[in-house]
């Protein structure tokens, strides 16, 4: 049984077809690393999964909810599918704890006290217990991104989508974020990560997906795929990045 099932999804922006029939099956506990050149459709695919983008044909079912245009129960879907962005997108007028508490209190109608306890728990998990009452502007990029992860975790998602979440960070801050993600993977969280961190994709991923020109060009077990890429495109890509 797959937790996320993507069937022959096609997506165009105007005349520009960005996803040209993508199919993927993601099981509970999978850590899927999506790699590929800029513009190959990685972000678009991720954004289709939680309904930030609509697609023209095919189907996506996530946690039993069909993601299909206007009729989708987006609220229910997004309660179970979290997303972390490259630019963190923390709410600057709220403290770290308030950022984390917002969705549980507003969407799940959890009491302030309970939400605060959850915030303390998830912020501790990302190593930021001391920063609960700090505003985003008082935090480093790595700390902000960890708050963003905690903010998603507070909703207890079944799947977490991560779109290049270390790409906007200074190199010395990348590892603190990757360590958090690795910890989540070890705890069995289902993760779909778009990433340029090849070593991380190989060591932590359970599945590697190489996207090229809007298609899944190659996929498999990360260590095997990296050791012996079958297609010239992936060989070239790994040669350039790795």
């Amino acid at each position, binding site marked *: 049984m797959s937790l996320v099932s993507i069937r022959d999804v096609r997506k165009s922006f105007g005349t520009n077809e960005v996803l040209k029939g993508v199919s993927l099956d993601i099981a509970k506990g999978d850590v899927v690393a999506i790699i590929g050149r800029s513009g190959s459709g990685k972000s678009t695919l991720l954004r289709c999964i939680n309904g930030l983008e609509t697609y023209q044909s095919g189907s996506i079912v996530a946690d039993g909810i069909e993601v299909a245009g206007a009729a989708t129960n987006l609220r229910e879907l997004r309660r179970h599918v*979290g997303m972390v962005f490259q630019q963190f997108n923390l709410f600057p007028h709220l403290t770290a704890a308030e950022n984390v508490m917002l969705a549980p209190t507003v*969407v799940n109608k959890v009491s302030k006290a309970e939400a605060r306890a959850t915030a303390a728990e998830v912020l501790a998990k990302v190593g930021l217990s001391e920063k609960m009452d700090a505003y985003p502007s008082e935090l480093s990029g790595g700390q902000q991104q960890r708050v963003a992860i905690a903010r998603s975790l507070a909703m207890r998602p079944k799947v977490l989508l991560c779109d290049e979440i270390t790409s906007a960070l200074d190199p010395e801050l990348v590892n603190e974020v990757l360590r958090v993600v690795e910890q989540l993977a070890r705890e069995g969280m289902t993760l779909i990560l778009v990433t340029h961190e090849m070593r991380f994709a190989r060591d932590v991923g359970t599945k590697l997906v190489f996207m090229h020109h809007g298609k899944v060009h190659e996929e498999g077990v990360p260590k095997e795929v990296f050791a012996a890429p079958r297609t010239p495109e992936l060989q070239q890509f790994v040669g350039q990045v790795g």
Partner: protein
Amino acid sequence: MLQFSFWDILSNLLIATQWTIVLSLIAFFCGGIVGLILLFMRTSKIAALEWFTKIYIEFFQGTPLLMQLFLFFFGIALFGFEVSPWAAATLALTFWTSAFLTEIWRGCVEAIPKGQWEASSSLALSYIEQMRYVILPQASRIAVAPTVGFSVQVIKGTALASIIGFVELTKAGTMLNNATFRPFLVYSLVALIYFCLCFPLSWWAKKIEGRLNVAR
């Protein structure tokens, strides 16, 4: 023959000024509420609501306020309803104010980065919840200066209510001029009072605008 001293003129003008202030406050307050509702409609991504607000805004921004006052004062009377100058002025100024405030505030909402919408969407917040908890708290900070700046236009706009017979500062000035034949004195005082009402507001608006620019 009645004699008006300088102090008589001034005190009469100041009494009428109260009505200018009251009308401004009501127009601004009610216009703000209507404007906020329109803002939700205008940014809702629901085509019908967006079109309605667009037409509403085009109408009230694209026609003279004076014509709108006439429309409310004489227009509604055509349907057999008695409309006092006071009610007509309040209604026209409220709608007129709301159209401008909606546009000012829409600009502030659109200045909030797209990532804030996407992050709050991804957390399962509804549109109203996003506005309430994420977008408006940030947009309202940048909205203060242009909103205060616009309040000056509302105060000056109330002068037109004199034409449909509402006795506020301008109308009182006209009446005092007719009684005293001292137009230069009377209208200088009227202008001075408007200036005293408006200048602190525009000064304040400039000041907070400057402060925001420094912070950026």
